[in-house]
């Protein structure tokens, strides 16, 4: 069992932070790596990147968006509750090097994945320009944390409710007019990572993206996480999750993420129904216990 030490709601409860006791994983974790969590017996195995880790206290931190059945199940776990299973650290760590100027771009919950990488790059002495964005101000996360480890932080929202109006790619375009960064790291929704990669391709700026295909085991056993990179099939869980954005077949990834759309919908409907059923099942038990 893996206990939740701290739980925090962000972005109006649509994004949740969990700090979890997992000493063995915390000791090994490196930026860019992920864990797979399972809440209970009937739960799915869900991959989440470690947004932080503390080897001394033996904890890891994940930050996730509540998007479907499993993440809403996770969001019901309170401080003191436990995940039944957490395994990791999985995937290859980011190759952190001193390169010069680095632009770190995060969209939505991607900022959580980006944060330890950007921090690592900063610690190595790189000049870090960060661009973070969200649909609206409420959904923006880790702004202060990102500012603390960036030489420059640019913020945007789709509607302009906060920071500049526009997409992270608009801000990247502005940066590219004045700079030629040595590396771009882009983590967020697939369309965003694709758009960034398309922008940096013509000027041949090395671009790292972090892919999030559907996974099961996370150890290279099932092949469900396969992605096409440079015309070759790679397993994101063991060969990635970071890849050269100029080589990734993003269209295929987007399609493959839709594989279980119908089931996901069914699952969510069940989720709301089962809340009702649970209540019905509970009552007679409470009655009999009271007797």
């Amino acid at each position: 069992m893996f206990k939740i030490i701290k739980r925090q709601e962000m972005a109006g409860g649509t994004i949740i932070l969990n700090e979890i006791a997992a000493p063995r994983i915390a000791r090994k974790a490196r930026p860019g790596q992920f864990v797979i969590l399972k809440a209970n017996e009937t739960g799915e195995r869900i991959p989440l990147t470690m947004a932080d880790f503390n080897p001394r206290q033996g904890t890891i931190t994940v930050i996730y968006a509540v998007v479907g059945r499993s993440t809403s199940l996770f969001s019901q776990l309170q401080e003191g509750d436990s995940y039944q299973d957490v395994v990791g650290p999985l995937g290859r760590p980011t190759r952190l090097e001193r390169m010069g100027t680095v632009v770190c771009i995060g969209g939505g919950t991607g900022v959580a994945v980006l944060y330890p990488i950007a921090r690592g790059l900063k610690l190595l002495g790189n000049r870090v320009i960060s661009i973070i964005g969200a649909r609206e101000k409420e959904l923006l996360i880790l702004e202060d944390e990102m500012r603390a480890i960036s030489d420059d932080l640019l913020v945007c929202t789709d509607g302009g409710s906060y920071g500049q109006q526009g997409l992270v790619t608009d801000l990247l375009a502005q940066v590219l007019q004045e700079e030629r960064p040595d590396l771009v790291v882009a983590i967020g929704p697939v369309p965003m990572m694709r758009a960034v990669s398309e922008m940096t391709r013509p000027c041949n700026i090395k671009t790292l993206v972090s892919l999030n295909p559907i996974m099961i085991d996370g150890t290279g056993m099932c092949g469900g996480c396969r992605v096409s990179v440079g015309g070759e099939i790679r397993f994101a869980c063991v060969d990635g999750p970071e890849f050269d954005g100029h080589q990734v077949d993003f269209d295929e990834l987007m399609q493959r993420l839709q594989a279980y759309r119908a089931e996901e919908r069914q699952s969510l409907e069940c989720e709301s129904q089962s809340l009702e059923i649970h209540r019905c099942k509970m009552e007679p038990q409470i009655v009999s216990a009271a007797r």
Partner: protein
Amino acid sequence: METAPKHREKKPRVSMPEQEPDQRAGNFQEVPLGYTAEMAVEEASRCLQCKKEPCVSGCPVGVDIPGFVRCIRSGEFGPAIQKIWATNSLPAVCGRVCPQEIQCEGRCVLGKKGEPLAIGHLERFAADFARDACISCDAAPVRSTGKKVAVVGSGPAGLTVAGDLIAKGHQVTVFEALHKTGGVLAYGIPEFRLPKDIVAHEVAQLERMGVRFECNMVIGVTLTLDELFEEGYDAVFLGVGAGLPRFMDIPGETLIGVMSANEYLSRANLMKAYRFPEYDTPIPRGRNVAVIGGGNVATDAARSALRLGADRVSIVYRRSRQEMPARAEEIRHAEEEGVELHLLTNPVRFLGDDDGRLVGMECLKMTLGEPDSSGRRRPVPEEGSEFVIECDLVVVAVGSGANPLLTRSTGDLKLNRWGYIEADPETGKTNLEGVWAGGDIVTGSATVILAMGAGRKAADSIQKYLTEKG
């Protein structure tokens, strides 16, 4: 058959009751229902008690077949299971999944003129009897040696090593990467063939004997091999299996609807997706399903697909029926349930629609040519024989390879050119001091009983090493 009275040979083999095909194709419960005590005694009485024991030489771990059958014949079911346990710690599993027709039963003299003794069925009977009667192995308790052994992987190889060494008084911890123990027995072989309760029972038995199980531990990642020694383990056994899916390397393999058997069966068995949405993990319920391959993995996937509600399921295999490596019983069961066989057929590409979803598979007809290195006749494509099988789900079950996750973190561990660990076939010793290996990670995909046999040899060698080390 020296002294055996003639009339015994005439008795037909007692067949095991099974769920009817049309009923069972709609559920995940076990298909063969097991012998009653009367049936077991009757079948056991067919045994000729041959002095030369040809059947025993067909069993990779040398189960005392005439001995345990004799006990069953005289109604002594408790002693029967003790006789089996002396060489085989997982009889409830082996009785169900061993390819008996090429092992013990393949050598039985009764098979020359009629049907061989149903050794697998009897072994299963004895084991199930013991489980129901709560009989456990009556090994004498031993003094603790203070030595620590780490077993990596909880498949049949690892479970055997753990059982053998805990009985010798060592402290044994099994590390498992997944959240559940049992290896392929848990994530690969379906419920209708090997109920998961049985696997859980075997593991619980080991726990009772003192074995510790730690799940969610990917050795090589969460802890390295070196760190196991730093934590004070005196010996390490690597039984990590052959967990790397093989694909066809043909166009269209990333379409939605094409998946490895490992993924399909893990979703179904490990994650219990057949009980979706009660369990949260989904599985594609194909309407037209094609499974590529001819082994147990292929028949398991095909029969699972039927149970998940497919309208049509076919197995596509490039050689002929004779070469299919699946257990005879599995092929029979699959056919009875309505799985179609497309033999001498090989896929050349997958066809998809605009959303990247699979709609069909283009295949070529094959003929059998000269024997290849495996001794089987090589399939040769017939020119111009292309045709399309319509399907919305393809499960690729063409074998598996060595998963490099552990081995690549252990640079000095000697591997062969396919990435399998090199280990002495007699002792399981690797090139590293204090490290043994066995099962599928050494031999490539094989069988449960061979993995257990390798575990037994390694356990013997580890025992010798720990004793000599003092």
